[in-house]
């Protein structure tokens, strides 16, 4: 339902007004280019949040720009933090995740008049003329992740998978459903055990949850976590579990080792936006949508999968991208 027709760089223009475009990256014309990043998460989480600033760092360094990164921003404090970035004369304000959406009103204020805005969104953030939105569809990628897990589970004849996450919030509940639906596409009689520890970063508790799941015969585990991901994954390695990453490509990592990389890395989307920004083509008032199977990211990889597995997964992803699968309907049907 979320797919929209168009080429692979589809940009839906805001109906409100025509997008303003900037001449170059030095939006405010002060001779320097400064990129400011606000992230709600821990910038050293080895995962989702870190990837965003890591990409930004890499890009700005290559261009010789300055980067201001503020981590662990309290959503309640987002507006202030965004204003503060503007006061530090950044040319681009980038939000690391949609949780910080309350910062957006600052884009309308005079302090931020000379800054461009980049906002990632999987939820519904209202398009305004002052921001560019980068939208992905988490159901699609987690569904595909489930499918990849399903393939591996089938190979090992595993019927039970686990999912450990932090607080029981709508998005984590949704992700669980999508994951389950994906698995069931391959292993129809598979079951999913879901544990909410209450805290994305409490490794102690997350590990206990994982251990309990393992003791109940779970053969695949999705640590849908923040700072606690690695410790759970390392534990999973000792039990030879099928592990998936929550957002980043970590097929190269050896400790911990993941079997599936679920890549919905916000850094990838941001890198693309930065490239446009550098070229002076980043338009405000528009949204860029990222669909699995249509864009290079998001995507899902099986680390060291067999040819058959890879093909199956690729086909599956392509089908989603082509709109042959109604992801939301499938998730609603199989994930319940």
């Amino acid at each position, binding site marked *: 339902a979320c797919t929209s027709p168009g080429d692979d760089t589809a940009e839906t223009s805001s109906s409100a007004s025509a997008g303003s475009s900037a001449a170059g990256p030095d939006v405010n014309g002060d001779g320097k280019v400064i990129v400011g990043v606000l992230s709600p998460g821990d910038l050293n989480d080895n995962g989702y949040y870190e990837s965003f600033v890591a990409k930004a760092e890499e890009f700005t360094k290559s261009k010789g720009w300055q980067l201001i990164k503020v981590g662990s921003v309290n959503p309640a404090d987002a507006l202030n933090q965004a204003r*503060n970035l503007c006061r530090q004369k950044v040319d681009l304000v980038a939000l690391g995740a949609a949780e910080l959406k*309350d910062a957006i009103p600052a884009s309308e204020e005079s302090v931020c008049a000379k800054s461009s805005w980049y906002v990632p969104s999987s939820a519904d953030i209202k398009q305004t003329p002052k921001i560019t939105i980068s939208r992905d569809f988490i159901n699609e990628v987690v569904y595909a992740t489930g499918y990849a897990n399903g393939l591996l589970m089938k190979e090992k004849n595993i019927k039970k998978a686990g999912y450990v996450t932090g607080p029981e919030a709508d998005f984590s509940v949704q992700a669980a459903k999508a994951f389950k639906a994906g698995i069931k596409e391959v292993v129809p009689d598979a079951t999913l055990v879901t544990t909410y520890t209450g805290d994305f970063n409490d490794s102690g508790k997350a590990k206990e949850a994982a251990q309990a799941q393992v003791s109940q015969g779970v053969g695949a585990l999705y640590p849908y976590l923040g700072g606690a991901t690695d410790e759970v994954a390392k534990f999973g390695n000792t039990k030879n579990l099928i592990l998936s990453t929550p957002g980043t490509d970590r097929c190269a990592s050896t400790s911990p080792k993941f079997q599936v990389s679920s890549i919905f890395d916000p850094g990838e989307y941001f890198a693309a936006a930065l490239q446009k920004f550098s070229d002076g083509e980043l338009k405000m008032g528009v949204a860029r949508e990222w669909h699995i199977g249509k864009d290079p990211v998001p995507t899902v990889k099986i680390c060291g999968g067999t040819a058959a597995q890879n093909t199956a997964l690729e086909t599956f992803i392509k089908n989603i991208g082509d709109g042959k699968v109604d992801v939301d309907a499938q998730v609603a049907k199989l994930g319940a």
Partner: protein
Amino acid sequence: MSEKRKFPNVAELMRPSGYGVQVTLITIAAIAVAVVASMVLVSATGGSPGDALDALYTGSIADTAAWSETLKAATPLLLVALGACISNRAGVFNIGQEGQVLLGAAVAAYVALHLALPGTLVMILSLLAGAIAGGLWSGASAVMHYGRNVNIVVSTLLMSFLAIQVVSFAVTVPWLLQAPRASADSIASSESAQLPPSVRIPGFGEYPALEIGGGLVLSIILTIVLAVLLARSRWGFRLNMLGLNPMAARHAGVRAPFAGGMALALSGAFAGLAGAVILSGQVFRLQPALSNNFGWDGLLVALIARSRPLAAVPVALLFGAFRSGSSFLASTGVPNYLVDIVQALLVLAFVVPPVLAKVKSRGRAEATPPPAEPVPSTPTEPEKVTA
């Protein structure tokens, strides 16, 4: 002999020439140590102290925008601190403000989002509701204490964690506080809907010009009222008596369960009000992390101000400045947690010297009981005997 017996005269020591100057000097020295220690930490970890200080300055007081942020942060700090002044004076040590702030905000949000009345009325009612919620929450600790002898420090602390869980739960339940989904297929986030502009606290000035929120005005008014009441009213007198000598207070007709319980509830009410002010003056929606350490820091403000409302104003400003300044630290590469370290050290810098001076003067007159401080004495209560 009694008339002529010489006691070490504390009043003498308190005069600017003696005790006061000594305390001031040690305090300045202690602040210097706190700042230097933090800066040493910065440079030891590869940062530049000069840049860090500059960032703190620019972020907090360099221009009107900075001042706006500072004042905004100082508002809830001051409100929480005022409440802490009340409970500390009464000798009941409330340390659960963090939860009370959050709970106050939650109830205020509920009222603001669910009442269909004219906007201003709703705003006032939601502020009141926040205060009442905070008051009831800390009042529960008072009931546990006076009814079942449960230690106040520990129970307010535990109640605080409980509040955080309750609110985290409430924002995931649509019929309580969770914002409705924008559309059927979108994800509902764990927070409330935004307050409509009509029920927000109005303010003066528009950012980046100097912005003075209605909450700030309210808290300044409350500061003055509270300062007068504590110094001049029967209630303030009785409260002081209760804090300084609960037995004598009881003899003088102060009902500890009532007066102390009331003080505890009031301190919670101020914290709850602070939460409501954060909600309807700054954040506009309930989020599980809305309290954002304002409760803890507000308590520290009261400690530095030695439970005096007027003294809490500059301290709250200082802490507010740290908050607004901290977000500028990021550009220097120094983690903004530096500010938490500095704040903790500063509390010590303010709390240690008077005690140190006291100890030194005790060294001269070995066991002369030192003057009690307005800082919370350990909660003592009259011995209770079963009825």
